[in-house]
């Protein structure tokens, strides 16, 4: 199975080699611009008046790890929508793959593996920027990369499972506008969830992004040992989502390939 998987990866890598220029801006440059504008520009005003609420951190230090997880989530959502529906409906590359010895499981997991590689590239660049800006407090920042990928995959896998059931991209807009954007804005990325009204704080606990943001922040700031139990819960929740949703993706892609 590992060899079959690598064939799918090879296909995606060859494809990416031809189109990476156009994605370079959205995956590498735009998160960095976001971090500069919000972390340094707006951060100056936050530090002047609201520093205490962030536990003595500068706003840049608070924002950077959260934005790392959130950026990877956004890229994951994109990679799990259009390329999947394209492979099943537009270019029909998944059908072509199915005509070879590859199984639907290879095709589904191979594509998810490729998404994970893409996310790792984005997370690595972003992490390097965090280190350069001096917003990392611990060597554990390196572990922020796999954790951000795990967070991203907890979105990519369920969204991919859904995308495989769609024949048009009409519903994607709804996912982005009512799913990804609110999570991006309210999952403790830009401000602590303690600032949310009471009931909404409980909702934030349900957000996979919040688990990812809190975990990434613990690693980048080196505070992970302060709350080991909570951090372990984050890892378990995210891993569980990825495992279950990957299985679901295999099933939905299988169904489309076999029944058309």
């Amino acid at each position, binding site marked *: 199975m590992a060899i079959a998987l690598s064939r799918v990866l090879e296909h995606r890598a060859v494809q990416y080699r031809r*189109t990476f*220029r*156009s994605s370079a*801006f*959205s995956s590498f*440059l*735009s998160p960095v*611009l*976001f971090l*500069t*504008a*919000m972390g340094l*520009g*707006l951060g*100056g*005003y*936050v530090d*002047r*008046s*609201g520093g205490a*609420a*962030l536990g003595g951190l500068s*706003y840049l230090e608070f924002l950077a790890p959260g934005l790392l997880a959130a950026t990877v989530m956004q890229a994951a959502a994109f990679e799990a929508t259009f390329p999947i529906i394209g492979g099943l409906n537009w270019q029909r590359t998944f059908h072509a793959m199915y005509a070879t010895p590859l199984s639907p499981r290879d095709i589904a997991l191979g594509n998810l593996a490729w998404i994970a590689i893409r996310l790792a590239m984005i997370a690595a660049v972003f992490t390097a920027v965090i280190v350069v800006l001096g917003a990392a407090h611990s060597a554990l920042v390196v572990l922020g990369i796999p954790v951000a990928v795990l967070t991203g995959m907890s979105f990519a896998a369920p969204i991919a499972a859904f995308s495989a059931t769609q024949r048009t991209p*009409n519903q994607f*807009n*709804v996912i982005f*506008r*009512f799913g990804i*954007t*609110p999570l991006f*804005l*309210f999952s403790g990325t*830009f*401000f602590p969830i303690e*600032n*949310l009204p009471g009931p909404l704080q409980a909702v934030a606990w349900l957000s996979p992004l919040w688990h990812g943001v809190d975990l990434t922040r613990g690693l980048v700031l080196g505070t992970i040992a302060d709350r080991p139990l909570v951090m372990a819960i984050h890892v378990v929740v995210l891993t569980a989502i990825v495992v279950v949703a990957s299985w679901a993706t295999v099933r939905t892609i299988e169904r489309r390939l076999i029944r058309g």
Partner: protein
Amino acid sequence: MTIPTLPLRVAPPLMFGSRRALRLIERNLYVYRRTWIVIVSGFFEPLFYLLSIGFGLGRLVGNVPGPGGAEIPYQLFIAPALLASSSMNGAITEATLNFFFKLKYQKTFDAILSTPLSTADIAVGELGWALIRGALYTAGFLVVMVVLGLATTPWVLLTLPAALLISFAFGAVGMAATSFMRTWQDFDLIQLVILPMFLFSGTFYPLDAYPEPARFLVQVTPLYQGVDLLRSLAVGHVDLSIVVHVAYLSIMGVIGLIVVSRRLDKLLLR
């Protein structure tokens, strides 16, 4: 040749289409009847940003200097700026991605040109549609501002036409730019301009954060013109700078419209 006829010779009124442009708006109404959720969802984007950045993060920011230098609450500072940038983003999406799809792939415009509509009708009709959409969002956002207690002066009502002016300026220039695009990859160039403008044009924080030369650079961007226009109206700080902003955006829109009419002639009729 007397002076008043000169503008008419450069840009004859017919170039800006006829009443047939209304038919195009009617077409878009029919098309979107089936995907109304796409339209409705556009209203929530600035609202989510306002609640998150304005109220969630705003609590940590406190007061910032507004137009004229007086300190204003951060929520009041950012609400008009979000309205301005969502007007820009809405118009740009409609005028670039959707316009390109109809121009190159769906061949909608080729079909339309086999009817009595002209290329100028298409330009005006598409822009008119983008403005109607923009007006819906702006009105909705203004209601939210009133509900959240961010409407403190009657001048705030003028943000509605002002936001439409921003949509007009960016929509026209966006369509003009799209008429030069060859592939989807070219659209990254547009994002390369739009995103930095969204982040750095005094949208999220005052210009004092920048050194003097950078401040000037920001002030000449069209989004800054729009942001400052809406923000001045929202806090009721009305002075001559408003006239400058309005003139800037109007000229930008008219130039865009002239370019796109001529380009469409070239692309579709020859």
